């Protein structure tokens, strides 16, 4: 029993210590003198590797998810003779939940792991140390542009997911299953509110992007400098980022549905 309490205490201390370190790490990354002339090209470079290179997986997933939602929705709605509402069902499911959550999970798997592995490998091969010895702060040169790129990419990728998924749903619903195109689009337009549905989805994606990128860069920066360390850090990024996304989604949805 005593050992159990001791272990619990140790876990609590370690957890608090890590939260503190990651908080200071984030603060030091974000709060610094702006150097726009040098930072902008670094940000563009990272927007490409984090955002643009994630486009294919996001768009393909969105297409298939839109098509599946449409197919499932049509089968259910048809039982009640309400297949004309397919557009609304599809748009609400995608914009409110599926786009931000699936984009976040895919983003953690594609961009999050790449960030952790890249930064971790830089740590293992002394690149971060050598940068520091050249009097170049790695938090500014390496971490900050990656963090901002992740934060900017997530809502943009979510918007692209929205559009592609709705198009995928349209292809299945209208072109294949024969739902009337006019009612598909008009029901969607009347049933979706920009602020409550679209904007809330984007807010979710910004918050997910913040936490996923924070977890990914933190795990990479503080990885043990060896092969096992990098592999563990990469796994932790996916696990923690996915769990954080799902938990945050529940909290944000419950707050948003109560009309904040």
């Amino acid at each position, binding site marked *: 029993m005593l050992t159990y309490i001791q272990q619990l205490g140790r876990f609590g201390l370690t957890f608090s210590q890590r939260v503190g370190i990651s908080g200071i790490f984030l603060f030091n990354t974000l709060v610094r003198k702006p150097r726009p002339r040098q930072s902008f090209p670094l940000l563009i470079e990272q927007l490409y590797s984090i955002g643009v290179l994630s486009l294919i997986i996001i768009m393909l997933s969105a297409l298939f998810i839109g098509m599946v939602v449409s197919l499932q929705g049509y089968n259910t709605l048809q039982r009640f003779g309400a297949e004309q509402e397919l557009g609304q069902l599809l748009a609400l499911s995608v914009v409110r939940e599926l786009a931000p959550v699936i984009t976040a999970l895919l983003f953690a798997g594609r961009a999050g792991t790449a960030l952790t592995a890249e930064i971790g490998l830089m740590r293992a091969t002394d690149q971060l140390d050598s940068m520091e010895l050249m*009097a*170049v702060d790695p938090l500014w040169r390496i971490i900050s542009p990656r963090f901002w790129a992740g934060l900017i990419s997530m809502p943009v990728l979510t918007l692209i997911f929205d559009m592609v998924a709705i198009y995928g749903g349209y292809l299945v619903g209208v072109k294949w299953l024969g739902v009337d195109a006019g009612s598909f689009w008009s029901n969607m337009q009347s049933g979706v509110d920009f602020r409550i549905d679209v904007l809330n989805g984007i807010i979710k994606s910004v918050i997910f992007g913040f936490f996923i990128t924070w977890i990914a860069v933190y795990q990479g920066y503080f990885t043990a400098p060896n092969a096992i360390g990098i592999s563990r850090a990469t796994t932790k990024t996916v696990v923690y980022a996915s769990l954080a996304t799902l938990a945050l989604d529940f909290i944000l949805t419950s707050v948003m549905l109560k009309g904040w």
Partner: protein
Amino acid sequence: MTADSNATSDNFVEIRNMTFKRDSRVIFNNISLNIERGKITAIMGPSGSGKTTLLRLITGQLKPNSGKILIEGVNINALNRSKLYILRRKMSMLFQSGALFTHLDVFENVAFPLREHTRLPEDMLRDIVLMKLEAVGLRGAKDLMASELSGGMARRVAMARALALDPKLMLYDEPFTGQDPITMGVLVKLIKQLNDALGLTSVIVSHDVQETASIADYVYVISGGNIIGEGTPQALFADKSPAVNQFIHGLPDGVVPFHYPAKNYAEELLC
């Protein structure tokens, strides 16, 4: 940045009564040493004796538990981050791995510190980078990616990059480890030439006794957290103390035992 009043101008680095621990393990136990300006000082010792840790203490990446580390009379541990970064521009370190940036080619690796710290026009920057690469004999490799270089070439490029901002102090972490005899000869010659031609102060951390001793002006031998011997290479080769003698002549058994501490051999086989 105020200079310590006791600092002597002949020493670029002074370590005074420094103790460093990792958790409860003592890595350095109240050691003192001087790195003389313009000279090549070697820090030698068996693997795991804390040689690389000593370099990290000199660069301010680690802080000692007690004692002082003075760089040109300035206590490096009393500096805040921005002052530490200013002081670090005077020093460069060559990592064992080279630590080249893998996403950049050779030219951009050498140009990196110049781009970060200067506002030189592109043509002038190009000339400086080519001059640094010429000094290490790798001007022809400027377009290769870091991943395309052999271990020896990577270290020479890292050397060119370390020299880019004309440092006063060069720190070499195991520069000869894992190199073929030709590359080793090239590196030995380069370290000596660069030190003399550019008026640098160099510190070589190594356990390659012959190569290091051939160019070092002064040698410290560290083991078990203490300095067990010091002097010119000739003096150390003549040193008869068991620990120094075993290390310098590479004897397999002696003060540093061949066997890792274990239970009695016969007992373990029979149980």
